[in-house]
């Protein structure tokens, strides 16, 4: 049996048009509340279109009408069966002070794991520098292997002219964008079941450990702390949080200890991933500003003790923010 197609279309078209109009209104303004009567009408129109589609699939095979109806039913299905929280208006202050720290705390275990991996890398880099000095050519990028720390410190302290004069803002912008790219990459490597993220964190740890060991062994610990702490107190935790997001992604892909399927697991963490990487970007903007406009000034212009104190205060404030801001953990649920 084949349905009377023109009559079928003529009968259904007014209802399909009505559903289409309603869908357009919903899509244009998702925040617009739907009155009960209109919601009922919407549901009726969806069921009617779905029934028309089923009828068309069974009794006819007219591709254009089927595609038209499939598209309508698909759009309405997405609106009716969506159980996730509706997108609400973005409130930056609330997001930064409540949503971000709460999300961070909810996945604190992954963060501690990133800390452990980075510390392991630091230890490896430190040992390599002490026991195999030739390894500095591999473990120390950015020209740190080209001169001894004491030589660099002497050069920096003797410098009377501002090396970054006329390009400090550019340097700051470069640092922000570069570090944000590295963070996104660290998170994205979570798609390798977390292995890529772990390797990236470990390698960062190796570099950090090698450079720190090199400076401390050369008696330049104070310079190192004054140089690294002001921006590192934000930059290093930011990279660790990006790693936290990468590990979350890897864990969702592996799916150990849960019966949920892959898409459910990924769906569960998608908002958290975006929150974490968004928070990382904010931290790195601050780190970029501090590194460009403060970290590069040394004694006698800025006392190391002041820089160290500044960095420590930042670190404490960041820790307080991440662990206390946004209320108690119970509120997360």
């Amino acid at each position, binding site marked *: 049996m084949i349905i009377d197609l023109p009559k079928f279309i003529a009968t259904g078209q007014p209802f399909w048009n009505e559903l289409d109009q309603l869908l357009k209104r919903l899509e244009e303004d998702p925040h617009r509340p739907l009155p009960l009567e209109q919601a009922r009408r919407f549901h009726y129109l969806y069921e009617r279109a779905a029934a028309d589609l089923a009828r068309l699939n069974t009794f*006819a095979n007219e591709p254009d009408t089927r595609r038209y109806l499939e598209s309508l039913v698909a759009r309405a299905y997405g609106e009716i069966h969506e159980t996730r929280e509706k997108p609400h208006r973005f409130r930056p202050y609330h997001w930064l002070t409540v949503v971000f720290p709460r999300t961070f705390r909810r996945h604190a275990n992954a963060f501690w794991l990133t800390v452990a991996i980075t510390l392991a890398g630091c230890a490896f880099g430190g040992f390599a520098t002490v026991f195999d000095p030739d390894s500095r050519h591999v473990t120390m990028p950015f020209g740190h292997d080209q001169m001894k720390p004491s030589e660099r410190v002497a050069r920096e302290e003797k410098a009377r002219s501002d090396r970054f004069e006329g390009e400090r803002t550019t340097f700051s912008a470069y640092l922000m964008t570069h570090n944000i790219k590295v963070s996104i990459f660290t998170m994205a490597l979570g798609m390798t079941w977390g292995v890529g993220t772990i390797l990236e964190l470990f390698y960062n740890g190796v570099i950090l450990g090698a450079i720190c060991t090199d400076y401390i062994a050369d008696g330049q610990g104070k310079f190192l702390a004054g140089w690294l702490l002001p921006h590192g107190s934000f930059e290093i935790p930011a990279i660790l949080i990006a790693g936290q997001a990468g590990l979350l992604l890897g864990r969702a892909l592996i799916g150990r200890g849960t019966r949920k399927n892959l898409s459910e697991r990924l769906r569960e963490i998608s*908002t958290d991933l975006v929150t974490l990487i968004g928070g990382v970007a904010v931290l790195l903007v601050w780190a970029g500003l501090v590194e460009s406009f403060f970290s590069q000034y040394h004694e006698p212009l800025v006392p190391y003790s002041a820089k160290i104190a500044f960095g420590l205060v930042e670190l404490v404030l960041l820790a307080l923010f991440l662990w206390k801001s946004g209320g108690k953990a119970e509120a997360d649920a």
Partner: protein
Amino acid sequence: MNAARASMLTIRTPEGVVFALPLASPVTRFLAWAVDFAVISAGLSVLSIAVNLMGLISFDFSRAMSVLLFFGLQIGYGLFCEWLWRGQTVGKRILHLRVVDAHGLRLQFSQIVIRNLLRFVDMLPAFYLVGGAAALLSTRTQRLGDLAANTVVIRSPNLERPDLEQILSGKFNSLRNHPHLEARLRQRISPVEASLALQAILRRDDFEPRARAELFARLGEHFRSLVEFPPDSVEGITDEQYLRNVLDTVFRPRSARERTTAAETALAAKPGEV
């Protein structure tokens, strides 16, 4: 049918209705990306001019702005366009592609962000080789970003109503002289066969003349074998016309069929007036 459905995103609703959306192929997606790349490049060129003008005030500031704007455009282009146009960028709009949720649900902002940020891995080592390989291996043609975000890229469905006027234009149909055989034909013909004939007629002008003749000869042979009409009704008509008559029989509104039958009955009752 199964092979055709293999490149479709098929969703079964709780009401038991199944609908399918056609998935975009990796090649089409690559072309869309090429268009987007051209758009981003053009955007960067325009920004360069604006940023160079800023250099008249402060060279350092203009360079910093260029670094930030270029970065923002690279990262934000896909995010902004797909959020603004519900899963489409300029390239996707031109090639009629759209990003949708893999379960047919509403596309969320977090999904758009994830699929765009994971380009950093999909792009590796160059020209989206990782993403392309993942899309080729994936049953839903998903790159890694799509997998993580639970999204797929579909071809936007054509929303135009079918044009049946050209086959139901009221031309003479010799098969109408045999309503009982017409009824048998309607009973025997399957929806797929009817669709095939309909598409052949609707697209007849797109075929090469020889291919068109061969196609309608084969279709004509098949449809003639379904129901045998008396020779006087089908003699002298081309395969294409025969198929048109078949479609008229199948798709003609029931009310029109009833009117035709009533008129024929009336004429049969008063043969002298013919």
